[in-house]
């Protein structure tokens, strides 16, 4: 046995060799991107629960020879001419570990399960107490359609433009579900843009809030919200699920799961299930979702001009969603005779509860005795429903 030949063979078959062949350098760039994302998640605490998983998935998928995720299998899965078109069996037989985990993303399972947890963690009380704040949640979907239009102008096909636009909904699971259904090839950059910008809300929103509102408007103190009865809180998810799904059936997975989770929270007889949805289920699914979404950032597909366009359009989407919410907030300020603080409009971009906290902080800067948090939670949770409706519309129009 020739030792040198053996060592050479080991070297040639190692992942290190992969960096020096073909487009191997791109994998090195992606590993650097993964390290930057890990830094942002761990050190800067940018949505760490998801960003750390996404970054590690990105690292794993770009290690040559690891074979955890195979983009070519998913290409066949999506190719109507392939014998393996929509064949999960083929994925299970030939795929690596992350291919199998990715089935949960592809089938729309993870985002829906996360929505059960989100529902179980959400108190819709402020929204029930002040249903007008629903309109702020709708207004803040402006960025979704603005970015959609911008993406078409930049040459993206309709379905891809719709998937990019939904970044403006500032709702990770909704963005992932919409993207998986409309433009699976763009999932990596869209998920990374969505979660990164959600983490950057405290930096993105305040300058826009200050630019579009006056000191006097920001200082407005809002009246105490009325008490919401337990019965109202129980009836709310049932009514909303029934009504919205009948109106727009394509919202069923998101709204159905969101309201089911909320019902578990409010019934008072399913504490154990509510606890599991909020904690164990949410954490397990977040773990799988992060790693498998991160794994889609394969170097050859990620390092393109389209990724840069998506990152730019995502920022535009967030900014214009904030603008939409603020402008309708200002309108409500005028119509109410100065009783509604327009800052709560900015919380209409979902990003619960970060956007509501930003409204609270900005309101308190203008008037130290201002407590806007509960008032901002209404538009904030309305934004979740609004972005689900926007996603349902886009899926209906551009879905296969």
């Amino acid at each position, binding site marked *: 046995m020739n030792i040198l030949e053996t060592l050479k063979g080991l070297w040639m078959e190692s992942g290190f060799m992969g960096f020096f062949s073909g487009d191997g350098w791109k994998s090195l760039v992606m590993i650097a991107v993964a390290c930057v994302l890990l830094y942002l998640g761990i050190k800067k605490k940018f949505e760490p629960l998801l960003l750390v998983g996404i970054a590690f998935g990105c690292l794993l998928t770009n290690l040559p020879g690891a074979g955890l995720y195979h983009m070519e299998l998913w290409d066949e899965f999506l190719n109507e001419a392939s014998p393996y078109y929509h064949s999960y069996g083929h994925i299970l037989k030939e795929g690596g570990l992350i291919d199998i985990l990715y089935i949960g993303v592809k089938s729309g399972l993870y985002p829906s399960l996360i929505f059960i947890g989100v529902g179980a963690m959400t108190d819709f009380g402020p929204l029930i107490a002040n249903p007008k704040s629903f309109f702020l949640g709708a207004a803040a979907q402006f960025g979704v359609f603005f970015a959609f*239009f911008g993406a078409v102008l930049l040459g993206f*096909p309709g379905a891809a433009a719709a998937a990019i636009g939904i970044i403006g909904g500032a709702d990770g699971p909704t963005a992932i579900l919409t993207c998986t259904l409309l433009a699976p090839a763009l999932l990596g950059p869209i998920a990374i843009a969505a979660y990164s910008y959600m983490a950057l809300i405290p930096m993105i929103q305040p300058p826009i809030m200050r630019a579009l509102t006056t000191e006097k408007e920001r200082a407005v103190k809002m009246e105490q919200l009325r008490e919401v009865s337990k019965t109202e809180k129980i009836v709310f998810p049932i009514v909303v699920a029934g009504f919205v799904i009948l109106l727009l059936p394509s919202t069923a997975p998101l709204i159905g799961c969101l309201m089911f989770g909320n019902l578990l929270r409010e019934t008072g007889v399913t504490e154990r299930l509510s606890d599991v949805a909020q904690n164990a289920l949410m954490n397990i699914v977040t773990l799988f979702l992060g790693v498998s979404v991160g794994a889609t950032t394969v170097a050859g597909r990620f390092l393109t001009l389209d990724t840069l366009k998506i990152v730019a359009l995502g920022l535009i989407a967030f900014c214009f969603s904030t603008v939409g919410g603020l402008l309708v907030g200002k309108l409500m300020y005028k119509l109410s005779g100065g009783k509604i603080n327009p800052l709560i409009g900015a919380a209409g971009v979902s990003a619960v509860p970060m956007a509501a906290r930003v409204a609270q902080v900005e309101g308190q800067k203008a008037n130290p005795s201002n407590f806007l948090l509960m008032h901002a939670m209404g538009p904030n949770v309305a934004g979740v429903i609004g972005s689900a409706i926007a996603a349902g519309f886009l899926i209906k129009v551009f879905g296969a």
Partner: protein
Amino acid sequence: MEFKMNVGEALVDAVMGYAVVFLGIALLVLVVVLTGRIMSAKKSTPAPAAAENKPAPVPLTRPEPEAPGTAGDLKLYDTPDRDAAMIMAIVANELKMPLNELRFISIREVHKK
């Protein structure tokens, strides 16, 4: 669906999408408000005749005893009760002291000059 859209189509879809979100939300507001009204109407419906036969409650002649640890009245200036309760709870929490060991004399809203 890998078709390129023209700008006009995209604009129509964008405007229509935004309008659908508003319309859906407007209808939802209507449903939520109606549900709330129905429920509050049910709540305010007087109880059956049994209540009419019930003797009138005896008025309290004696003032209720103060809670243990109460240290006089608290004066509130431009501050709702709920806000005051919240402020006192926050102060107690920050000082890591039980609320009944603290004495609040007055709470006044700070008006910005």
